[in-house]
C-alpha cells in the first residue's frame, strides 16, 4: 500500500480519469446535501490530502452490507471509493488469502497507528467466549478489539454492527452484540439499515475521508444528513395516507391504485432512513414502490417489535386497536388516543373529512366525523 499518496493519486493510479474524478466530486456534494460551491473544496481536499486507510472487518453477518456497497452502488462512486480505500483489508474481496491477509492487517495497523478508520460489518457474538464466530482461529471479538484499539474512528456498517439485527432477535442464541457495546472508547458512526443504501454508505465514508472529520450525528449516533427524515415524510404514497386510502391486501383494489401500505404493516412512519429519496439499485426503486411496506430495518430493535405484516400497534391499551383508527376514520376522537402514528392517521383523515365537509354539504358518512372531531 502507498505511504503518502493523495486520494487523487490513488484514483489516477487506478485508472480513473480527471473527468470522472470531478464528476465524482459533484455527485458526492449532491449526495451529502452540499451545494455546488462545495465541489472545488472536495476536489481540493482529495488532491492534497494523503488518503486515510480503511480496514473493513466482517463479524457475525450475512455480507449484505458489502453487497449493497460494492455491487449495487453507482458504478462511478463505487469505483472511486473502492480505489480510494482500496479495502486494505477486506475478507470478502481481497485477492490474497490466509496469512497474507492477516499480515496486511498487522502492517496497516502498525504503519497508520491512530490514523486509520475501522469499518465493521456484522457484530461479535459474546456467548461461549465468542466461539460462534471464529476468524483465523480466534474469536472475532478479539480481532475487533485489537483493530479498534488504534483506530481513529469506527464505522458500524448496517444494522448488525449498529444495533444487532435479526441475529440478535429473541432468544439471541449467540448473544450477538452491537459494536458500541464492545468498543467503548472510540467515536462510532452508526450507519444502520439491513443493508444500508449504497449511496448512504459511500456518502458517509467520502465525507469522513474528504473533510477528515465525523459527519454530524443524531442522538443515536447516525449521520444526520441521511437519517433525519422518516421514510413516511418523503414517501410518494403519502397523499394516500393523508386521504385515508389504504391497501388491505397485496393485489387488492387499493394495491392496484398505489394506496398507502400502512395497513399491511408499513413501518415508514416510524423509520428514519433515506430510502424514499435516495432509493435503491441506482435509484430504480425502494420497497414501498414494490408494493411491500417498509420493515423499518434501520431502526433499533426492528426485529422484535411484533409481526411485520401486522399494522403498527403502538397504541395497545387505549381502548381500540390501530385498525379502528384507520378503518373508522373520523369516528375516532383524536383527543382520546395517546399519541403516535395512529393519531397522525386519524388526524390526517379528519382533515380530509373536514375538507370534504367544507367543500360539499355533509353526507351521512361525514356526519359522524364532524360531530366527533369538533
Amino acid at each position, binding site marked *: 500500500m502507498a505511504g503518502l499518496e493523495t486520494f487523487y493519486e490513488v484514483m489516477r493510479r487506478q485508472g480513473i480519469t480527471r473527468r470522472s474524478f470531478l464528476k465524482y466530486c459533484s455527485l458526492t456534494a449532491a449526495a451529502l446535501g452540499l451545494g455546488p460551491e462545495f465541489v472545488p473544496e472536495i476536489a481540493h481536499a482529495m488532491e492534497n490530502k494523503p488518503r486515510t486507510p480503511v480496514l473493513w472487518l466482517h463479524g457475525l453477518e450475512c455480507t449484505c452490507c458489502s453487497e449493497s456497497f460494492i455491487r*449495487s452502488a453507482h458504478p462511478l462512486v463505487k469505483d472511486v471509493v473502492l480505489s480510494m480505500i482500496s479495502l486494505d483489508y477486506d475478507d470478502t474481496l481481497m485477492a490474497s*488469502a490466509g496469512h497474507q491477509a492477516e499480515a496486511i492487517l498487522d502492517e496497516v495497523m502498525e504503519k497508520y497507528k491512530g490514523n486509520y478508520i475501522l469499518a465493521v460489518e456484522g457484530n461479535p457474538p459474546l456467548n461461549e467466549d465468542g466461539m460462534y464466530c471464529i476468524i483465523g482461529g480466534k474469536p472475532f471479538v478479539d480481532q475487533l478489539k485489537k483493530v479498534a484499539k488504534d483506530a481513529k474512528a469506527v464505522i458500524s456498517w448496517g444494522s448488525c454492527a449498529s444495533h444487532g439485527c435479526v441475529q440478535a432477535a429473541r432468544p439471541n442464541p449467540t448473544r450477538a452484540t452491537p459494536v458500541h457495546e464492545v468498543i467503548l472508547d472510540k467515536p462510532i458512526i452508526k450507519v444502520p439499515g439491513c443493508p444500508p443504501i449504497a449511496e448512504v454508505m459511500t456518502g458517509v465514508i467520502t465525507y469522513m475521508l474528504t473533510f477528515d472529520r465525523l459527519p454530524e450525528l443524531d442522538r443515536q449516533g447516525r449521520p444526520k444528513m441521511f437519517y433525519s427524515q422518516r421514510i413516511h415524510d418523503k414517501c410518494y404514497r403519502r397523499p394516500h395516507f393523508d386521504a385515508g386510502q389504504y391497501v388491505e391486501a397485496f393485489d387488492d383494489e387499493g394495491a392496484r391504485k398505489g394506496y398507502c401500505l400502512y395497513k399491511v404493516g408499513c413501518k415508514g412512519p416510524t423509520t428514519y432512513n433515506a430510502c424514499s429519496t435516495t432509493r435503491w439499485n441506482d435509484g430504480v426503486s425502494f420497497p414501498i414502490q414494490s408494493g411491500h411496506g417498509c420493515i423499518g430495518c434501520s431502526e433499533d430493535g426492528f426485529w422484535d417489535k411484533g409481526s411485520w405484516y401486522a399494522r403498527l400497534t403502538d397504541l395497545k391499551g387505549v381502548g381500540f386497536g390501530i385498525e379502528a383508527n384507520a378503518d373508522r376514520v373520523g369516528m375516532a376522537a383524536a383527543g382520546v388516543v395517546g399519541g403516535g402514528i395512529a393519531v397522525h392517521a386519524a388526524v390526517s383523515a379528519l382533515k380530509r373529512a373536514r375538507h370534504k365537509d367544507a367543500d360539499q354539504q355533509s353526507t351521512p358518512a361525514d356526519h359522524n366525523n364532524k360531530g366527533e372531531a369538533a
Partner: protein
Amino acid sequence: MSVADAGGGTRRLVVGPFNRVEGDLEVRLDIAGGEVLAAFVTSPLFRGFERILEGRDPRDALVIAPRICGICSVSQSHAAALALAGVQGVAPTANGRVATNLLVATENVADHLTHFHVFFMPDFARAIYAGQPWFARAETRFKAAQGTSVRAALATRTTLLHVLGLLAGRWPHTLAIQPGGVTRGADARDKMRLLATLGATRQELEERLFGAPLARIAALAAPEELDALRRGESDLALFLAIAEDLDLASLGRAYDRYLSYGAYPDEDGRLYARGIVTSEGRGALDTDAIAEDHTNARMEGRWRAHHPFEGFTFPDATDETGYSWCKAPRLAGLPFETGAVARQMVDGQPLIRALVASGGGSVFVRVLARLIETARTLLAMEDWVRRLEPGAPWCAQGEMPREGRAAGLTEAARGALGHWLRVEDGRIAGYQIIAPTTWNFSPRDAAGVPGPLEAALVGAPVRQGETTPVAVQHIVRSFDPCMVCTVH
C-alpha cells in the same frame, strides 16, 4: 493457517480464512506424498436463525429467513414463501409465478457471474502461474478488483440487478415474494424496461463472456464443440484454455451423485427438472429420505439423523468431537452434491451429462455447468418477461391456519435450498433450513463418510512449500460456497 507434523510422514495444514468466498471457512488437510490424504471442512460461524424463527408469526419468516444471507436472499425468501404457501394451501397466480421466477433467476444469474469473475477466475492471475502461456491474458482480465473482465462483469451485474429493483423494490434483501405471488405487478412500460435490461445483459455476455450467442452456449451437446469456442477471444475461451492446460477436468471429483429440487416452475413442470442422479442413472427425489446427522456438528442430538420436520438446532457447549457448526445432510444415508452441475445433470443437459459420464464431476464441469446454465436461464428470462400479463392478478390471497406443516424447496445459485416449516397454535413451532452448501460442505456423518467437498479434496496436489495450495483453492471455489447460508 498453520502447519504441523502429524507423524508418519503426514503433514497437517489448516487453510483459512478463505477470501473471496461468502462468509468464513476453514479447511484442515492431512498431506503426504505431495497430495491431500484427508480433508476436514469447518464452518466457523453460527447465528441460530432456526431458533430465532421459533415462536414467531409464520409470515415473519419472509423477513427473517432471507437475512441468513446477503447474496442468496431472494432464494431464501422464495423458500420461505413456498413453505408458507404449502401451509396455507395457496398457489401463486400465473403472473406471480412468472415474476417470482424472474426474481429468483436474476439473483442466480448474478451469482453465477460473480462466482466466475470475482471468486473463481482471479486465482489464475496468481503469481504461481506466471510461467503459463495464458498468464498475461488471465492477469489482464481477472486480476482481483482490477481485471478488465472483472470490472465489466460487475457493471453488467449491476445492470441486471435493475430487474430486482424494478420488480421488487431493492436488492439485497428483497421483500416482494409472497406465498401467493408478488407484491407488485408489471405494466407494459415495465416489460419494455425489463426487456431492455435483459437485452443489455445478453449483449454484454455474448460479447465478452461467451464470444457466442446465448442459444449456441445453451445448446452445447458434444465435448468437441468446445474446441471452436476455445480458440476465441472470450472469457470462456480463456477458461477453456486454462482448464485444458491445468487439466481441471481431473481435479476435485466428489461422488458424482447429484440432487436438484428443480427450479422455475411452469404451469406444467419446471425449467430445470427435480430429481437425483446416481451411478444408477436418473431417479425421483424422495424428500422423506432426507435427514441431518449431527455426529460431527457440535450440535446436540447425535443419537440418530433427523428429518428436518423433526430436526432441531441446539449447539452443544460441551462438545469434544465436532469440528463444524454445519450438520451433515444425507439423502437415504448418502452425501449428495448440489448446484448448477446437479441441476444440469438432473435436467439432462447433454454436454454436462457427457462430460460427467466420461471423466466425472470436476472443477471444470462445475464451472462449465454454471456458464451453460447462465445462458439457458437468461434465455428463459426473456421469455418470462413476455409472458407477464399487465393487469392480471399478481398475488393470490391465503389464510394462515393455526396448524400445519410444509416444505419450501427451491434452487439457489449454489443448489438445493429447503425450508421445513411447522406451524402450531398459529406460531412457528419448528423451522429447519438445509442450504446448498450445507450439502456440499457437510462434515463426516456417523458412518465416517466425508461430505462432498471433503471427498473432492482427497488427492489434490500440494506443491512443495505451498501453505495455501492453489489446487485446494480451485476445488473449494468450484463449489461456489456460501458459508453464511451453510450454517444459519
